[in-house]
């Protein structure tokens, strides 16, 4: 068994929270520059230029690209030959979020209770943590600071098999259309199809971790991604919703086997900053 100390996990999470907020991932930057070439709307192009300039300022001054530095969603892929030592894993991750958000002057956006006590916890904890046991002796940590402009525009629907592929496409396109300018387009559209209610939502979120513009390994899913991207960009929403050709930078779909009686579909929208960072220990 390979031992990994919780201290290392805390330090890594703290660093990833800051890096994800200060610096656009190269894939996101590239796709914004690509969007600039495709955008026909003059206002849309100016907006894309402003976003690129903003990213340069944020990186140079080590300040967040967006004031909504998100709720921290942390994904762990824990190798079955890894033994975590030195303390509690959940606490180690939350300690990392606390440290990253406090030391990094990131906004604390988490409230204690959604209904009865909407008091800010003051340190952006707790994080939303997803763990998965995989083969091997590595630990992969991914941090996705999720802003709520996009999160609030996300949706899930329990469709039935008769709705089929056409029903799924319509739901996804309608979801982005309804979101309009709110999630800060050009967006990244994460889609989860299959599994159960919660599995579909988790797949949609995980799809946002993929490098922007990468395609699914299964050819028909990759084709569907391209088709949906084109349909979404025909909606005319454009950068910031002010009209234009580029509403989405990418559509990422993840699928999973499902029940004979169901067809769950979830759409999780990420904003133009498309923040995500990962590391393998």
């Amino acid at each position: 068994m390979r031992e990994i100390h919780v201290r290392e996990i805390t330090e890594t999470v703290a660093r990833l929270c800051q890096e994800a907020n200060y610096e656009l991932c190269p894939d996101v930057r590239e796709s914004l520059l690509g969007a600039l070439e495709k955008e026909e709307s003059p206002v849309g192009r100016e907006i894309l230029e402003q976003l690129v300039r903003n990213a340069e300022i944020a990186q140079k001054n080590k300040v967040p690209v967006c004031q909504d530095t998100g709720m921290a969603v942390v994904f762990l892929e824990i190798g079955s030959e890894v033994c975590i030592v030195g303390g509690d894993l959940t606490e180690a991750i939350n300690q990392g979020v606390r440290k990253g958000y406090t030391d990094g002057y990131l906004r604390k956006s988490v409230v204690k209770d959604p209904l009865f006590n909407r008091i800010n916890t003051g340190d952006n904890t707790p994080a939303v943590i997803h763990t998965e046991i995989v083969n091997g002796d590595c630990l992969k940590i991914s941090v996705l600071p999720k802003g709520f402009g996009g999160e609030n525009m996300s949706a899930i629907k329990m469709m039935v098999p008769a709705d089929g592929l056409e029903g799924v496409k319509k739901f996804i396109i309608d979801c982005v259309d309804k979101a309009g300018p709110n999630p800060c387009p050009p967006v990244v559209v994460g889609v989860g199809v299959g599994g159960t209610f919660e599995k579909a939502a988790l797949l949609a979120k995980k799809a946002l971790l993929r490098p922007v513009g990468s395609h699914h390994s299964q050819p028909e899913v990759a084709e569907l991604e391209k088709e949906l991207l084109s349909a979404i960009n025909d909606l005319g929403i454009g950068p910031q919703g002010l009209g234009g050709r580029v509403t989405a930078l990418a559509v990422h779909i993840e699928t999973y086997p499902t029940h004979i009686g169901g067809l769950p579909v979830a759409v999780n929208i990420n904003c133009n900053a498309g923040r995500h960072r990962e590391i393998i220990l």
Partner: protein
Amino acid sequence: MSAIRVQAPLTDEQVRKLNIGQKVLISGEVYTARDAAHKLMVELLQKGEKLPVDLRGQIVYYVGPTPAKPGQVIGSAGPTTSGRMDAYTPVLLKTGLKGMIGKGARSREVREAMQKYGAVYFAAVGGSAALLAQYIKEAEVVAYEHLGTEAVRRLIIEDFPAIVVNDAHGRDLYQEGKAQYRRV
């Protein structure tokens, strides 16, 4: 198209002259307020009490900034989704609020109230918070300090870039812009 200079607080005459699609550079005094501050202010109005700041003629900027680093006036400070404030906005417009800066669509009720009371809604670019913070020259908390990032702040801004999305004449750039480029 070159930008129009707008001085805050706003006069009725200035509001009437603004039309959708115009790029503006806003200078002067504006107030920040998000969900929690709106809720508290509207509760005060419902009780017949006075607001902690007089919003007559003023512009509200929907923003919850990041904490300022040492030496900074304010942290990153881009617009948040305005629609979340829609439930509270008509009553603030009735008390004399003249302008709003945010991002995202407004409800029909808000657009109608803007027309009725004469107000304008500007969109700033969501996700460009590091850049927008550079146009904020002064910031001080003036109400609801306990709300932290959601507190009401008085800002002095200079040439803050935005675009008119809803004007006092009832037009909506989100609807018209989308229609122009839609291919379905």
